[in-house]
């Protein structure tokens, strides 16, 4: 093991890790937004949009991210839509994550008795107010394990982004192996940096879940 090589390479991996975190963070925030909008459409059973959401969820969940990225990066330019690899990565991650977040929100909303919604309406709230003030806050506690699992899942999925020439951790490791043949060192660095990103998030998520687990509402 060439420790000098490892020490020299750390800044390179650090930069790639920052890119991974940045793409991941933006993609996850957008995924949450897409998921919320989709869940609201399904909750209110808005005709047409609801069918559209159902189709999107099936399409997104039943195709691999790798294939989705190929489509965005190599397919869309043929129709005149050209995106940078970074934008492609964010769009792809959001396309994938949105459906997973939507399902997490939808199933947790369904777990709250609809009479809670009616009791909010009976106070004179609009349906939107009843969703925002009564249903979502209570479902969030139930959704937390699924949401944090999605966050970790999506961060790990960024590891396929090198196929669209995004200089992420995997990309840097592959380059190093190709250029220097220091395979063991590159792989150790790769694993270490993923752990560096994901372990704190995993531990934080577990702490968060414990904090909200008291939430057995009702009786």
């Amino acid at each position, binding site marked *: 093991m060439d420790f000098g090589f490892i020490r020299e390479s750390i800044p390179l991996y650090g930069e790639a890790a920052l890119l991974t975190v940045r793409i991941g963070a933006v993609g996850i925030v957008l995924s949450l937004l897409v998921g919320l909008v989709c869940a609201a459409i399904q909750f209110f059973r808005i005709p047409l949009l609801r069918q559209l959401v159902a189709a999107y969820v099936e399409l997104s969940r039943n195709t691999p991210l790798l294939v989705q990225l190929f489509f965005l990066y190599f397919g869309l330019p043929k129709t005149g839509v050209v995106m940078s690899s970074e934008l492609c990565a964010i769009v792809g991650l959001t396309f994938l994550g949105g459906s997973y977040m939507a399902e997490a929100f939808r199933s947790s909303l369904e777990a709250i*008795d609809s*009479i*809670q919604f*009616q*009791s*909010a*309406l*009976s*106070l*004179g*709230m*609009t349906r939107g*107010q009843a969703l925002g*003030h*009564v249903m979502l*806050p*209570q479902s969030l*506690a139930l959704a937390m394990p699924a949401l944090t699992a999605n966050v970790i899942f999506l961060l790990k999925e960024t590891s396929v982004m090198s196929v669209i020439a995004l200089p992420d951790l995997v990309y840097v490791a592959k380059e190093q192996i190709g250029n220097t043949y220091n395979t063991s060192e590159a792989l150790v660095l790769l694993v270490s940096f993923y752990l560096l990103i994901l372990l704190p998030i995993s531990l934080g998520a577990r702490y968060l879940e414990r904090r909200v687990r008291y*939430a*057995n*509402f*009702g*009786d």
Partner: protein
Amino acid sequence: MTDDKAVLQLRDVDKTYPTGVHALRGVSLDVARSEVIAIVGPSGCGKSTLLRCVNGLEPIQGGTITFDGDVISDPKTKWQKVRQRIGMVFQSYELFGHLTVMKNLLLGPSVVQHADAADARTRAAALLERVGLADRADALPRQLSGGQKQRIAIVRALMMQPEVLLLDEITASLDPEMVREVLDVVLELASEGMTMLIVTHEMSFARAIADRVVFMDAGRVVEVAEPERFFTAPESARAQQFLNTFVFEAPDKDVAAGPALDGADVGEPAEG
């Protein structure tokens, strides 16, 4: 609006659920201001559905419902406005589990009425005091007993300052010793002139509080009568039969008397 005019009018109200259940079949009823109406009847007779239709939680398929001169049973009804004036309390309390008692009480006034926060808080504190729960303002719903929860649910409805209150079997989920504390609150509201529609299985309570008793069966109003009359001498055989289900007799007493349970030839009315 004159006071003797009906504040709430139901005319030939018809309700069929999407499942095909025909819950209300031509129900008509006039409710005067400050009147207390107890709606009784066997399970599935449509009494809860009736309240839900008045609160717009269920659309109706026929007839009209009028509130304070306005038809509220058509698709254009501004339910957010109407529901502030017609409050509802549910059998299962339906407090918001993520909010403290005080926040449960303030949510409606702040979100719906944009009420002054300090003013709403003062009103909430006064109402909590009245129902004997002033010390529970910061408790979460799951820390309360059923009777406490239901008193909070009533207060939450009162926070919107409604003119009519719909109470849907509000003591049906309570242990017997908690029924009293909830019904005392309702009795006090009645004495202050609150207009109420009360669906209940508590016959002695209905008898004590109601100006009129509405007996429903199979989606129809079978009988409307003053409580004394209804509970001592109901007109319809169906009402007699229903009231007899609340009467128990010692098993060794007159076993041979025959089919007392089907009530067809039993004229003896229930004691309230």
